[in-house]
């Protein structure tokens, strides 16, 4: 690729690309990031081969894209220009797609998405409820373009915001435009990006740093991963505009090493941008010098905290330090530094694409624009969604997410990972923005939403998150290092049936202490899962402590697996699969579990055929006595008369 001399050269490259694009040409877009885990590579290979075999090599493009969002249906492919979505593909599904759709223009019905309620097939992507409720702005290219080809991004209007900024705006104009847009940081803290940039701009010194935080450590969150994998240039463009506005000369993109595809695609984007002269010295002859390097994290949740992240980039243990001084005064190597989250950076080009006023038209008073959420847990449509800030949780979970599968009842949604809280059903109609979620004890956070149903124990959930933060606590400050440990001990005791009166009060006191006195955000927010579950599900805690009962049937020490003799069909399946050999019985002899041997592993429950439904979980009451041997001989209805 030839280096672009100036903004005009970039413009004419874009015009050329647009002129040479054939919008009517068939194109199969196949997700090659998240869907890889679902076998997308084999489908792609089969597709390439079959297209050649049927002589369509010149007439069909096969484009490997980033995440298309509908992860629950992986692997997913969309045939353009019609926009037909095929899902859960395997290589053997490829020949009919090529012959019937690409050759014949028809639809392969069995591969299209069925509406879960009516069962009716919905062939077009745009008609599927999961997509209909969304507003894809930041993700506008994700799943559409080939993220490893910068020209795809440019053809879709990419780098035109940079062009506008460099060609016609002063750095001060840029900052005031970002401030006017109301854009807030998407990483969790929700600080106004324009204000942050202003701090860096006004900090004294020539050497300034801009860091993009891609250390997405919340379990159950994959927004930044999708952006880095599916549209890395939008993140780079946001960083470049930030560099121009703030006067930063060097950039770092810090990405979790657990995201190999994100690292790979970002590095490819960076190499291509450098070749085109969009990163480096005197970018587009504007006088802007900005170099970006990629830093891979090494596995520490606390590195998502900005001062810890700075220490990690410096090659040290990623431990936070007190603020002030804020990074904008003294950050990386003691120089003024801004840290922007991946999604924030990807929002920046949008502000300039249509102007701040247009950008601020979406959202609420407290939060402008859209937000990306990752949906996971007990929900039909696990995946990645982008919605206007201010939409209700109910709309996201039930309309877009399709609700809770298996006819189970919704219990809570955990927002914002280990730093966030559990929101119960009564608050589902709240708008999702920065203020209203905080009011109920949760945060918008980075955007992870994990749905829990009636089979989820909330005490166990609190224990789970606290176990995570306790391990990830860096150990620097006492409240977090020791407080989380003591809280974990109490929670463990409760789930093991050893809880005592006063535990709830002690836990609350400790949680509030850790919240109010920890050094960094990790410590201050880690009691949130405990505090919100205590607030909304106190009865579950009390059941564990007073009745030694786990109402959801999860906490192993408080449950017993039991085979209902009325329902057992003596099919031997559980007996053969029990890893501990705890099940007794035989052919035509009703099975029972020896409670002295059983480890409550749940294998019998998962293998018992649903039509028998004989294995039960009992909690808070004694297991009924085992029937004597002579009463356990199975008399099969109807068979004896034959």
């Amino acid at each position, binding site marked *: 690729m030839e280096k672009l001399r100036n903004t005009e050269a970039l413009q004419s490259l874009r015009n050329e690309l647009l002129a040479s694009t054939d919008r009517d040409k068939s194109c199969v877009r196949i997700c090659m990031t998240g869907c890889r885990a679902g076998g997308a590579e084999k489908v792609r290979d089969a597709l390439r081969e079959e297209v050649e075999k049927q002589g369509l090599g010149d007439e069909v493009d096969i484009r490997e894209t980033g995440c298309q969002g509908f992860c629950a249906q992986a692997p997913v492919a969309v045939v353009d220009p019609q926009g037909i979505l095929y899902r859960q593909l395997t290589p053997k599904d490829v020949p009919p797609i090529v012959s019937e759709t690409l050759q014949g223009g028809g639809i392969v019905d069995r591969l299209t998405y069925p509406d879960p309620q009516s069962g009716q097939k919905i062939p077009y992507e745009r008609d599927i409820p999961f997509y209909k409720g969304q507003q894809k702005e930041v993700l506008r290219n994700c799943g559409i373009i080939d993220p490893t080809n910068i020209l795809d991004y440019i053809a879709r209007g990419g780098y035109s915001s940079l062009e506008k900024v460099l060609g016609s705006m002063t750095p001060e104009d840029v900052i005031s435009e970002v401030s006017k847009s109301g854009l807030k940081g998407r990483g969790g803290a929700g600080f106004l990006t324009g204000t942050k940039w202003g701090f860096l701009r006004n900090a004294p010194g020539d050497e300034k740093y801009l860091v993009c935080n891609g250390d997405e450590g919340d379990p159950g969150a994959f927004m930044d991963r999708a952006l880095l994998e599916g549209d890395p240039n939008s993140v780079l463009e946001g960083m470049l505009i930030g560099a121009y506005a703030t006067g930063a000369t060097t950039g770092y993109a810090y990405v979790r090493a657990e995201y190999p595809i994100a690292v790979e695609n970002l590095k490819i984007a960076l190499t291509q941008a450098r070749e085109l002269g969009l990163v480096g010295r005197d970018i587009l002859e504007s006088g802007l010098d900005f170099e970006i390097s990629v*830093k891979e994290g090494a*596995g520490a949740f606390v590195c998502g905290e900005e001062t810890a992240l700075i220490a990690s980039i410096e090659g040290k*243990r990623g431990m936070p330090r007190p603020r002030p001084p804020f990074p904008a005064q003294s950050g990386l190597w003691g120089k003024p530094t801004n840290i922007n989250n991946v999604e924030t950076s990807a929002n920046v080009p949008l502000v300039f694409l249509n102007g701040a006023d247009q950008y601020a038209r979406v959202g609420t008073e407290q939060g402008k624009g859209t937000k990306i959420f990752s949906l*996971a*847990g007990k929900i039909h449509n*696990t995946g990645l969604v982008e919605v206007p800030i201010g939409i209700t949780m109910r709309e996201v979970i039930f309309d877009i997410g399709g609700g809770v599968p298996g006819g189970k009842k919704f219990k809570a949604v955990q927002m914002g990972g280990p730093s966030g809280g559990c929101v119960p059903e009564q608050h589902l109609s709240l708008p999702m923005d920065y203020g209203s979620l905080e009011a109920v004890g949760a945060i918008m956070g980075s955007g992870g939403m994990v749905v829990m149903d009636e089979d989820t124990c909330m005490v166990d959930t609190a224990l789970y998150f606290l176990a995570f933060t306790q391990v990830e606590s860096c150990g620097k400050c006492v409240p977090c290092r020791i407080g989380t440990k003591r809280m974990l001990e109490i929670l463990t005791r409760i789930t093991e049936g050893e809880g005592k009166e006063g535990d709830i009060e002690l836990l609350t006191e400790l949680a509030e202490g850790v919240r109010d006195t920890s050094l960094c955000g990790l410590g201050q927010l880690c009691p949130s899962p405990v505090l919100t579950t205590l607030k909304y599900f106190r009865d579950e805690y009390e059941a564990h402590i007073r009745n030694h009962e786990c109402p959801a049937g999860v906490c192993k020490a408080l449950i017993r697996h039991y085979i209902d003799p009325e329902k057992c069909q003596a099919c031997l399946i559980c007996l053969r699969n029990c890893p501990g050999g705890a099940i007794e019985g035989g052919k035509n002899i009703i099975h029972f579990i020896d409670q002295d041997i059983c480890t409550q592993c749940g294998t019998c429950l998962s*293998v018992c055929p649903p039509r028998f439904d004989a294995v039960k979980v009992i909690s808070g009451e004694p297991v009924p006595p085992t029937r004597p041997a002579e009463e356990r001989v199975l008399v099969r209805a109807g068979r004896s008369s034959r």
Partner: protein
Amino acid sequence: MSRDEALSLLEPILERHQGQQDALITMLQEIQEVYAYLPEEVLARLSRETKIPLSRIYSVATFYAQFYLTPRGRNTVRICRGTACHVQRSELIAAAVEDTLDIAEGETTEDLQFSVEAVACLGTCFLAPVMMVNDSYHGKLDAQKTRAIVESYAQPKKEP
């Protein structure tokens, strides 16, 4: 491979990062890429060459989950303990793996065939509960499926 030969693999890494003040983590990542863990002798040499105190190298190596100070198994089983997997009962998957290999999380089998570790989140929540064996994802697991998958990676025992 002799001891000197083994240590010589460090040379290109040292050369690449000469004089870079921020390269310690990157160097450790590259060392682990070559040796599959961080051998003590290599770290001692790294300390001598870079003048970074061994205590500081050790403090960094033990801080980050990615680094190992002991040899690893030929196969690595990573069990996802993310929130989505947790609510889909990932503890049953962990139990099945531990039971099959007779080691606990964080351990390596004596024959160096398997290492088992828990990871906070693999980011493939739609496959929950999920685990990775080496570079392959295995999703929507139950205990039985897990056992079969782990066993399929085991090398057959040689006939005596």
